[in-house]
């Protein structure tokens, strides 16, 4: 099997876990000690370039780049930034999301920011420019709403997805805003939210649906069947088969009623488009956003969302009041697939058997924002 690397990004720095057998793990870190690290991603095209979205509580946002396994870092000389003097006065607060570009476009990366902005680099993450087809779209302000529509630490643009069949075909998610699609490398965009509910808003007349303003927490595209999209939304788990429909199906309706289908992350099995994992949170009453009943568990579907099975072997059986954020759960490319999750309480949990059992491989870290897996060169 391949050696696996986990980049564990936290509110106070980055830790890197490595294993040759997914049983014994060595940890290095912290890197960017004391800084808020939102997302760390290895470029699968060269398996060498690592980008990190970094800021501190005091200083502005930037992107850091490493090509030596995270031992040394170089700061982007031109990080993502809105145009000076732009009419809405937007300024990037933090770089929240990083996505390597299409395999045919080495060096291309996309970044999603808070507030919602989309940026592109053509030189491996060193310099960034705004994708004005999105950022300056005349409807963009309507799509994203106002300050009341954002998440508590700022509205996010996330889940930038590149169709492996076509470098021009992109998706993105916004909290808030919804899912949007571009077929021309980001020049033009249209919402893709039909069938997704916004439970708290008044129904529109004549059975019409809200076209945008939704809150996808995490959107995934299946690498083997790029027509299949999954999303964990603020209001449920959804699936969409683009070759059959333009309307999302709420497959979370099949989740146990006492658990519900609200959560942050969703992870796909790279070998099986019908297989996915979610990590539900408590969305009752005042929305505590912790594990329901203090009993953390993943739920796994093997049949495209028709049924979901609870997976919690090894996880705390009770009194565990953490959750897993949207970037903090991932899989690997091994068989059986490995699953990794980082908790808001600073623990890293790993499964090397597709979720049948979990072991805690890291404790006492800061609040974990992101866990990504990679196979380094």
């Amino acid at each position, binding site marked *: 099997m391949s050696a696996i690397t986990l980049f564990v990004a936290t509110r106070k720095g980055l830790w890197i876990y490595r294993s040759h057998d997914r049983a014994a793990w060595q940890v290095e870190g912290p890197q960017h000690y004391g800084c808020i690290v939102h997302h760390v991603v290895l470029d699968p095209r060269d398996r060498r370039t690592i980008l990190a979205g970094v800021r*501190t*509580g*005091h*200083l*502005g946002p*930037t992107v850091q780049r490493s090509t030596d396994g995270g031992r040394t870092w170089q*700061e*982007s*000389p031109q*990080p993502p*930034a*809105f*145009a*000076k*003097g*732009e009419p809405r*006065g*937007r*300024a*990037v607060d933090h770089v929240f999301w990083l996505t390597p570009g299409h395999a045919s476009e080495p060096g291309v990366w996309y970044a999603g920011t808070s507030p919602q902005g989309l940026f592109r680099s053509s030189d491996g993450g060193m310099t960034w420019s705004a994708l004005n087809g999105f950022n300056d779209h005349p409807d963009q302000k309507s799509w994203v709403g106002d300050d009341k529509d954002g998440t508590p630490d700022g509205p996010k643009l996330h889940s930038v997805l590149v169709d492996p069949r076509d470098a021009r075909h992109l998706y993105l998610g916004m909290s808030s805003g919804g899912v949007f699609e571009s077929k021309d490398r980001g020049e033009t965009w249209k919402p893709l939210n039909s069938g997704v509910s916004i439970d708290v808003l008044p129904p529109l007349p004549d059975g019409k649906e809200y076209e945008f303003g939704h809150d996808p927490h995490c959107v995934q595209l299946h690498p083997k069947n790029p027509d299949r999209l999954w999303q964990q939304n603020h209001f449920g788990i959804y699936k969409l088969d683009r070759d059959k429909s333009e309307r999302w199906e709420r497959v979370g309706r099949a989740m146990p009623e006492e658990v519900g289908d609200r959560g942050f992350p969703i992870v796909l099995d790279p070998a099986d488009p019908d297989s996915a994992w979610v990590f539900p949170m408590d969305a009752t009453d005042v929305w505590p956003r912790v594990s329901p009943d203090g009993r953390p568990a993943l739920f796994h579907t093997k049949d495209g969302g028709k049924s979901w099975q609870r997976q919690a072997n090894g996880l705390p059986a009770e009194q565990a009041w953490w959750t897993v954020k949207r970037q903090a759960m991932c899989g690997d490319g091994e068989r059986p697939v490995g699953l990794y999750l980082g908790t808001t309480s600073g623990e890293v949990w790993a499964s090397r058997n597709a979720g049948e059992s979990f072991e805690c491989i890291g404790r006492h870290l800061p609040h974990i924002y992101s866990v990504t897996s990679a196979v380094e060169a």
Partner: protein
Amino acid sequence: MRVVFPTHLRSYTGGRAEVESQGATLADVLLDLDRRHPGVRFRVVDEQDRIRPHIKFFVGQELASTLDVPVGASDVLIVAAFSGG
């Protein structure tokens, strides 16, 4: 003039707490600092030329509210506010 950096920014100055700079206004000084220490300006001033929320600039003894403040021969002190956690 002399510019005094908080610990937060000393990765840009090779660990030095004080560096030399020049400029007629605070804006000029920050551009000069960014030439000498690339990237530092964007960490304290956003793309709309607003001073970031948790950053303060003192020109001499005076707190600067904008980047237009004349500097003269005064020292510039950059403070990362006491907020955080």
